[in-house]
């Protein structure tokens, strides 16, 4: 007896057609086209990404919010305590100069190290006459270290009833109230003496033997140097080869004791022919010694 349950349905399985459909075939051929492939794999993602960004950016408020958010994050990061600078330490400067440097740097502390314009501060500090060079560095622990190389004054310059100190390059270092404040430094005077400071130093070095008698150097016509000694003696150096001329004079002095004589001027301007000008008394004596009658010119 057969069961009366549901009959098993014999459904012939349709065999799958191995052939691709027309559309499948065409799509595969399209996909194998190099241009289409490149467009699909590069062009389409770029287009979609560009479109999304474009739509987002098209709204002004969103753009502003985005910029604001970026700024906030940047601010927050820069203001972290690790980056804050609270102290300035000045090294290599006298206390007065250090004060001036602090004032001149013009930094409002505490500030984030991202916001410190160290280059500008350095330029400002180097504008100080007494500072040869400055080096600024943010040290860990929030310290801004300013390392100063001071200018070293090597001479005193008297000009137009001002008294300045100059360094070896002739740059002004500071002003002085009176010459006596820095009696240890040699004195120079005259227009353009600062520009010829190097030559002045060479001349001074050459004049070492007569240094106790030296009162100072005078720049004449921004061209050449005069050495002024005590007893109103004056040594006029040539424009060129001043040091050599001076050395010759000193050698002469050593041999013949020239400068100890009653001279007014030693004129070395002409290398061929140094000229001495005697004082009035010495001139008279000389004439007498030579047996010449003192003439009417004795009142000269």
């Amino acid at each position, binding site marked *: 007896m057969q069961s009366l349950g549901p009959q098993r349905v014999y459904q012939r399985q349709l065999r799958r057609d191995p052939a*691709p459909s*027309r559309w499948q*075939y065409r799509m*595969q051929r399209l996909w194998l086209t190099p241009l289409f492939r490149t467009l699909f794999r590069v062009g389409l993602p770029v287009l979609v990404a560009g479109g999304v960004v474009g739509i987002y950016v098209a709204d002004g408020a969103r753009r502003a919010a985005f910029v604001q958010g970026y700024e906030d994050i940047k601010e927050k990061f820069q203001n972290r305590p690790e980056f804050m600078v609270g102290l300035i330490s000045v090294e290599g400067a006298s206390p007065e100069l250090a004060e001036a440097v602090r004032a001149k740097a013009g930094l409002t502390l505490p500030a984030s190290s991202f916001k410190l314009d160290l280059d500008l501060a350095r330029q400002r500090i180097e504008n100080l006459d007494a500072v040869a060079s400055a080096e600024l560095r943010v040290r860990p622990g929030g310290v801004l270290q300013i390392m100063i190389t001071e200018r070293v004054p090597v001479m005193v310059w008297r000009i137009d009833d001002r008294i300045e100190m100059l360094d070896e390059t002739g740059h002004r270092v500071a002003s002085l109230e009176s010459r006596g404040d820095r009696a240890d430094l040699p004195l120079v005077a005259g227009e353009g003496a600062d520009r010829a400071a190097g030559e002045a130093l060479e001349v001074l070095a050459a004049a070492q033997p007569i240094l106790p008698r030296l009162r100072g150097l005078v720049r004449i016509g921004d061209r050449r140097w005069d050495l002024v000694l005590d007893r109103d003696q004056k040594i006029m150096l040539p424009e060129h080869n001043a040091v050599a001329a001076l050395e010759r004079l000193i050698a002469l002095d050593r041999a013949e004791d020239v400068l100890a004589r009653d001279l007014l001027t030693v004129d070395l301007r002409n290398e061929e022919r140094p000229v001495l000008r005697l004082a009035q008394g010495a001139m008279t004596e000389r004439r007498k010694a030579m047996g010449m009658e003192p003439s009417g010119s004795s009142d000269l």
Partner: protein
Amino acid sequence: MTDLYQSQRAMRNMRRAAMQRGVIAILDVGTSKIACLILRFDGPEKLREVDGVGPMAGQSQFRVIGAATTRSRGVRFGEISQMNETERAVRTAVQAAQKMANVRVDHVIACFSGAEPRSYGLAGEWELQDSVVTEQDVARVLASCDVPDIGPGREVLHAHPVNFALDHRTGLADPRGQIGNRLACDMHLLSVDGAVVQNLLYCIKRCDLELAGIASSAYVSGKSSLVEDEQELGAACIDMGGGSTGISIFMKKHMIYADTVRMGGDHVTSDISKGLQIPLSMAEKIKTKHGGVYATSMDDREMIETGGESGDWEKDRRQISRTELIGIMRPRVEEILEEVRIRLDGAGFDSLPSQSIVLTGGASQIPGLDGLAARILGPQVRLGRPLRVQGLPQAATGAAFASAVGLCLFAAHPQDEWWDFEIPSERYPARSIKRAFRWFKDNW
């Protein structure tokens, strides 16, 4: 005939364009399978001796980069009988080959075996105006061949100039520049049923492909299976396919005769199926596994399970001996070979200097066939396999792919056909600028 001329020329141009692009597809539309190969042309010959591939037939110029084969549907006797089914099969093969090659092909060269090819021998003569043979003279002598009535609805598939003769010297391959008075030529013309070609064209067009050439499979399998001296001295190639058996006779490297017997391996299969009352697929399986044409006493004891899915135990458990199988197969194979014999006799194959016969095609793989063929066709029979080409998968190197491989050679190096020569200037349509140009070129 002019429109065929135009379409053949257009196909040649298409082929040149495809060669320039570097990729071309080969489509062998057979009765039992459709094979698609994709060739890449790498420009001039790059010989690689290590592969054992010589330059002889130009097959080192290209490389097979994609190969696919699928069971053919809707093709009978090498002709398309159901367009939709065939189109699907072509799509399957082309898609799989494209997938393997990872490249898109637009141009395809196709071959088919059916359409009742008929061979004609044509002869033409031309008195030379000045004694040197020029290209125009060649064109004129080709044009002077009197075309036979090939019948209504038939088209010319191949038209090879086989031989040129100048005065009394014959056997010239290229008469240009030679001196004589009378130029004569022999041409071999192969006509096929136009409707079949139109069907194939339409089918390929439906697959978004462009036809860059069309060939008879008998011709191309002869190109691939006959070795060079066989082609030179004279040989026949029997391409035993599924639905039809192609015959082509070669002489001096030119095909001089082609024909088709509308019987093939599928008929053997259907005989087995009918004789043993088993499904066609089972019959095909038994045929390929146990088939043969010579029975020995050993075969009486070799029993073959026929199987079946009828649900009837008695029917499904039947066994047959191999002798019975051979007894079914042999008459049909003999019939095919007899038919081939008749065609060869009709073509005058007996009078050729060399009468070697090469069997190729899928159905030529029946064991013992060469012995049977030697008894029917003549003593010089061998089994042929197609030439080796670069990159062809191992599975596609068998005799069944003779026409596909031959088509590759055809794509790389087509023989000069009638439409590859110049058109004589007086055949140009009147008022053509080309004609005026040609007249100037000829007269100055």
